[in-house]
């Protein structure tokens, strides 16, 4: 616990506050932005470093690691997606790695970043960007835009026909349209909320564990941390998989 005189409610509240500028809609969560951009830059730099030093000979350890991820992503994409777009696979990889790395931030002790930054006069800091719906919705909305884009550019007029005739047949077109619209618009919400919910709950449990006396924390803390590694991997994979599935559905008629 950062300050012993805090009540547990206040402590949790303290950890739920973002570092913000602006007000109303024009608020920026500086913690979410800085951590996710920092991770994005690290990730991009690392991947670029590997790409530049890549060779077709026997791979080194780092190169091998990246190759494993790329092969894994490529296999996953090839299984579901049969179109020609070269965007899907890199997009899926970015989704997977970025979400995974942002989730990893949860493994830092919950008070570590806030307390360090407090020394520099920063009042609140939430270190897990994916526990902020802004981050998860940003990804799911990007993917939704791509889905809409591919639906329109690839299917053209047949998209309109599809929206009216599927899934209940042409005579129930007045049911088909709202059904399909709902189906499409639900996608970004489920994508974003699933990830957000998992990460938020994970963070909350870390905070609750951090409120225990220090000699009790060790066991539940390590168990939850190990479990959390599994959770972020699964969440990253699910997000990536659904991205690929939604985009390939946009390419193929139902």
């Amino acid at each position, binding site marked *: 616990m950062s300050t012993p005189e805090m009540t547990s409610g206040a402590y949790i509240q303290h950890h739920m506050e973002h570092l913000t500028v*602006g007000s*109303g*809609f*024009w*608020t*920026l*969560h500086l913690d*979410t*932005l800085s951590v*996710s*951009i920092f991770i*994005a830059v690290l*990730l*991009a730099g690392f*991947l*670029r470093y*590997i*790409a*530049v030093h*890549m*060779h*077709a*000979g026997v791979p080194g350890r780092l190169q091998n690691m*990246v*190759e494993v991820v*790329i*092969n894994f992503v*490529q296999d996953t994409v090839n299984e579901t997606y049969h179109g020609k777009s*070269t*965007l899907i*696979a*890199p*997009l899926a*990889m*970015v989704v997977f790695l*970025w979400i995974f790395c942002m989730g990893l931030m949860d493994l830092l002790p919950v008070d570590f970043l806030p307390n360090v930054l407090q020394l520099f006069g920063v009042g609140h800091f939430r270190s897990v*960007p994916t526990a*902020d*719906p*802004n*981050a998860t*919705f*940003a*990804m799911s*909305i*990007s993917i939704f835009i791509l889905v809409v884009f591919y639906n329109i550019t690839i299917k053209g007029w047949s998209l309109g026909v599809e929206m009216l005739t599927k899934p209940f047949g042409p005579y129930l077109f007045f049911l088909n349209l709202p059904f399909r619209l709902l189906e499409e618009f639900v996608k970004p919400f489920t994508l974003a909320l699933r990830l*957000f919910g998992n990460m938020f709950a994970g963070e909350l449990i870390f905070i609750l564990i951090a409120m225990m006396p220090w000699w009790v924390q060790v066991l539940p803390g390590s168990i939850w941390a190990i479990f959390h590694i599994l959770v972020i991997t699964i969440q990253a994979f699910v997000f990536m998989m659904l991205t690929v599935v939604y985009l390939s559905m946009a390419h193929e008629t139902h």
Partner: protein
Amino acid sequence: MEINLTLVGQLLTFAVLVWFTLRYVWPPITHYLAEREKTIAAGLEAAAAAQRELAAAEQQVVSLLGEAKQSANHIVEEANKRSTRIVEEARLAAREEGQRIVAAAREDFGREVGETREALRSQLGQLAVAGASKILRRNLDVNAQKELLAEFVAEI
């Protein structure tokens, strides 16, 4: 849970990250992956080809060995045949030569016997005349007694 401008910032970050990966990370890595895949495939193909060649070579070795054995057998057989023939020929030639030598010797011997007989005959005639002269105590005219002598010699 509040949605605000952060969303836009995150959208931009995500877009830039995806663009960067699409442009500067994915192509080189997949290029080299494909290249390595090709190299490995070529290597495996070459190994398979080499194995096939080895099998073919082994087969060829076996057949060549068989042929060589056969021709060696053939050569030995030929040589055997030829040597028998040569021995046979030599034997025949030797026999002929021997017969010829024997015949020539026989001929020489016969001639010499004849000559000796002639010489003995003539000497016998003279001896007979000389003996008769001794007996008759007078010289006999060999020529006068030619007819008688010839008759006598012919009887011997």
